[in-house]
């Protein structure tokens, strides 16, 4: 992984146009990128807490919030936030005060950290990593530590039981989550979220969800598992208002309580964004001419210069990705207010007896599918469709390097130098007929 590749264009801008030194430009660019991500991290809960209340109201034949901020009550989240900030910051006497104070931050950091490697556009990613999905799953798995610590350190029985249930549920659901995430990866042949999305350009039939029947089923399994791992209804018995008061966050109030919910809504958004990247084409629109146009616009800044059209293309891509994720978040909200809760033993049985064997079977099927296709089509192809973009798309922005012989500044034209032969092998295996 390249350290701070986030800053490519902004660093260049700060160095060349503003005239800052290298280190200062780097630090400032990192700050800008971080703030943008914090904006997304804080903005998602603000939108979706209001959205959830409004949708829940409509489903239950009510109006939902109507008063704060005009007709639709769209300032309700802000009003809630102001109320929560004003509340007293309580620490129960029986609690381990240090861990009690730290736990909400750990949940928040885990949910926020995943956004670091989540690409919002082809070059709009805070830290571009070759193993983006692996890093994302790794950071997302830290959330459970915050929840256990919250339950344990509260010094209350309800919190302890809630924390245990929650931890058991989240740890169990991590297994099918990882198995389901592996399935599109075997199809794409890459752990790089940018590369996986590039594979899905063109008409919507290039989306990995339509690659074969196994991946199609996997999407629904993944979505169920993702809902459960975000502890959303119908899998939210661990919070169980009726018997455990509030589960692991029984003792929390005010801002610390709301941090858990910020983390939850951000995690919902992240797993839905991952679902749309892995299965639903990410920032590709699913309409081939539009995708081609966006690719052309993006290619304008291939020499590293700043092009408004390329910027616009990335912005449109980000809009498409966020819309897809929000549709999935909407479905999660819809399910929450439609289905009754599962009992905690049913939650665990669903995971261990049904979802894990299902995802193992789907994994096997996805591995066998290309071989089957290869046999059926007389050795012609291993998949139905072929993507529009390059399998090995050229990096859009590069830093000039000094040529060894002429000692001039040149732009390296292709980065994966060592893996040139591997690319061919990979293309035959994963890319289909290209």
């Amino acid at each position, binding site marked *: *992984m*390249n*350290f*701070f*590749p*986030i800053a490519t264009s902004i660093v260049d801008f700060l160095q060349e146009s503003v005239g800052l030194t*290298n*280190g200062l430009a*780097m630090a400032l660019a990192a700050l800008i990128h971080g703030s943008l991500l914090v904006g997304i991290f804080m903005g998602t809960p603000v939108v979706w807490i209001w959205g959830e209340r409004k949708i829940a109201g409509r489903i239950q034949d009510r109006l939902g919030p109507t008063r704060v901020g005009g007709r639709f009550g769209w300032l309700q989240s802000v009003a809630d936030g102001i109320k929560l900030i004003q509340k007293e910051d309580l620490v129960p006497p*029986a609690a*381990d005060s*240090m*861990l009690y104070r*730290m736990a909400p931050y*750990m949940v928040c950091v885990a949910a926020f950290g995943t956004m670091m490697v989540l690409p919002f556009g082809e*070059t709009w*990613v805070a*830290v*571009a*990593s*070759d*193993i*983006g999905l*692996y*890093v994302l*799953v*790794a*950071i997302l*798995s*830290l959330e*459970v*530590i915050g929840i*256990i*610590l919250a339950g*344990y*350190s509260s*010094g209350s029985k309800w919190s302890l039981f809630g*924390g*245990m249930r929650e*931890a058991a549920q989240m*740890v169990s659901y991590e297994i099918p989550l990882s198995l389901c995430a592996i399935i599109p990866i075997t199809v794409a042949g890459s752990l*790089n979220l*940018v*590369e996986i999305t590039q594979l899905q350009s063109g008409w919507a039939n290039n989306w990995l969800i339509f690659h074969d029947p196994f991946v199609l089923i996997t999407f629904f399994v993944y979505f169920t598992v993702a809902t459960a791992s975000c502890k959303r209804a119908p899998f939210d018995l661990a919070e169980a208002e009726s018997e455990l008061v509030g589960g692991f966050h029984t003792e929390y109030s005010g801002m610390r309580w709301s941090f858990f919910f910020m983390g939850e809504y951000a995690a919902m958004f992240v797993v839905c964004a991952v679902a749309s990247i892995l299965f639903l084409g990410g920032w590709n629109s699913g309409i081939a001419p539009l995708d081609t146009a966006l690719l052309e616009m993006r290619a304008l800044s291939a020499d590293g210069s700043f092009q408004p059209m390329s910027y616009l293309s990335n912005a449109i891509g980000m809009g498409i990705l966020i819309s897809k994720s929000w549709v999935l978040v909407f479905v999660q909200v819809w399910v929450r207010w439609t289905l009754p809760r599962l009992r905690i033993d049913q939650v665990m049985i669903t995971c261990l007896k049904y979802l894990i064997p299902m995802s193992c079977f789907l994994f096997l099927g996805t591995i066998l599918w290309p071989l089957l296709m290869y046999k059926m089509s007389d050795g012609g192809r291993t998949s139905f469709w072929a993507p529009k973009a390059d399998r*090995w798309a050229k*990096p*859009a*922005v*590069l*830093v*000039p*390097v*000094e040529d060894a012989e002429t000692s001039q500044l040149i732009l*390296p034209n292709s*980065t*994966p130098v*060592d*893996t040139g032969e*591997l*690319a061919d092998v990979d293309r035959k295996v994963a890319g289909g007929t290209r």
Partner: protein
Amino acid sequence: MTYEKILFFIFAMSACGGALGVVLAQRVARMAFWLIISLGSVAGLYFMLHADFVAATQIIIYVGGTLVLLIFGIMLTATGPHVKIQTSPGELVMGAAVGLTLLFLIQGTVRSVDWNKAAMVTSGGEFQPGEGKGYNPTGQGNTIRPLGMALLGLRPDKDLGAPEEAGLSSGYLFPFEIVSIHLLVVLVGASYLARAKQRTRPTV
């Protein structure tokens, strides 16, 4: 002072600080928390070395797996609300002796290496310190593919001589699978030993 150095100091300090916290903390759950800080900072150091696979593995196995198990263990075996560990002076002296010996050993080893020469050797004589080679914002093809190929026995980064000679290498996949099956056997055995004994029918 480049930004890499500043970040290195931050990560190194928090790794050492977390380790100190583990030693000095009295409550077991707090020790687990300090261990999270320490292991997470070591993962940060791996990220700085561009070894993102190792870093993510560190997070997913040690922080997300082992530590969760540790906290589970504390919660399931605790007799009181906050379990404490009292260290006796003898244990303290023993621990300090072992730790300091290890520290001196590592320090001696590190100082005996000519790092500039080592960097020259490992990079094939092309190493120029402080020069960026240009980076790739889409982060393509620089970590996981060579690792996966090495697992299968292909080492594109090394000249293994004649193709037939190179073909003899079986890679690390087979040992890896053996280890994973070993772990599975251990897991099955543990769950067999730990499960509730089946009630035998009372003989009349």
